[in-house]
């Protein structure tokens, strides 16, 4: 086909001249397929399919006067405090002076904060006076101490949306509570 005739002249080939063998036009595609799949695997592994998502957060207005602020009922309040090294504490209602209701929990696994929230939710439902809005009184107060990290805060905020808690607030921690968290953190260390 596309071969150069090197025999020269226009005369017919003599008996001693070998005829060029007709080469097959078929190419072995196996190496090409190999290469193709190698590149595919490379691109599959490097591509990022998941896009980052955004979590919305509304902050309370600090400038509202204290008398206009929403008051939480003691029976429906749950306060969560975050300490260092993924330690988590909570108390229901108000903190007793002897801190006997200051309990510890964990982010997941046994004694998880999710169970605590669900238990509190069930309790609020059981004492609810308004049948149309049984979870009206449930308020979760989140108090991160200065020792906890950003992930802890996001985890707890996420827990609010996982357990569909409608009312929650990110509040500054009190000095006494911070001390309590610090002491509990220190005693929890092995």
């Amino acid at each position, binding site marked *: 086909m596309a071969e150069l005739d090197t025999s020269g002249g226009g005369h017919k080939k003599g008996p001693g001249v070998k005829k060029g063998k007709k080469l097959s036009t078929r190419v072995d595609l*196996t190496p090409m397929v190999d290469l193709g799949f190698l590149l*595919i695997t490379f*691109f599959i592994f490097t591509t990022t399919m998941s*896009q980052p*998502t*955004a979590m919305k957060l509304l902050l309370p207005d600090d400038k509202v006067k204290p008398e206009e602020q929403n008051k939480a009922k003691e029976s429906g309040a749950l306060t969560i405090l975050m300490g260092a090294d993924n330690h988590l504490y909570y108390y229901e209602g108000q903190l007793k002076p002897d801190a006997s209701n200051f309990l510890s929990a964990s982010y997941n696994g046994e004694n998880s904060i*999710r169970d605590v929230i669900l238990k509190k939710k069930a309790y609020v439902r059981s004492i609810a006076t308004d049948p149309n809005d049984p979870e009206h009184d449930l308020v979760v107060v989140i108090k991160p101490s200065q020792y906890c990290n*950003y992930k802890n805060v996001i985890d707890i905020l996420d827990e609010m949306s*996982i357990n569909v808690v409608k009312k929650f607030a990110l509040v500054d921690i009190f000095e006494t509570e911070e001390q309590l968290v610090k002491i509990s953190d220190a005693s929890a260390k092995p």
Partner: protein
Amino acid sequence: MGRAKLPRKSTNIDMTAMCDVAFLLLSFFILTTKFKPAEAIAVTTPSSVASKVAPSKDFVLVTIDKDGKVFLTIDDKSKREQVVNSINTTKNAGIDVAKFKAASFIGASFSGLNAFLSISEENRKGNALPGIPCKDTTNNELTVWMQAITEAYAGTKMDLLLKGDNLAKYPSFKGVLTAFKKNNIQKFQMVTNPENAPAGSELFKKSMSGEKMDN
């Protein structure tokens, strides 16, 4: 009974079809892949069940790295100019406007910003940069930045994003929150990695029953 002899078939397979498929897939992956721009500040974001995709343009991004240092990114270049001009007039900082417009992010105090901008873009890497001071309540410079940004974005929609590292300590997060609150910004979004709602939880049941999630 004589059996008909089966003709011996060649073991060669025609690879053309397979090759076609392989290269079709290859071109698909090449076209869909998006290489992450090399990030100057390494941040590992926590995951959340939030399902809304984070906006990717016209945003204002506040980044907190793992040491709690705060950086600011303004996506819109014309807004950058407005912001830096207002900072220059209010704070008399004398920031180089052209360099500020070219910088993809900023992370230094007002006094150190010109030194920060004189570093070439590719040498601006997270660990060595000072970050915007905001941990201190008396000297929260992010408040001033946010004020200039809210002024620049007055009347238009602003997507305020906060991207924090897992290991960032709470005080720097709180400093950022204070800066937002002081400027009456009560609404912002936090960038997270998507994750599924844990099986059996209330949100999981909700999404299973087809209810739209509002977060």
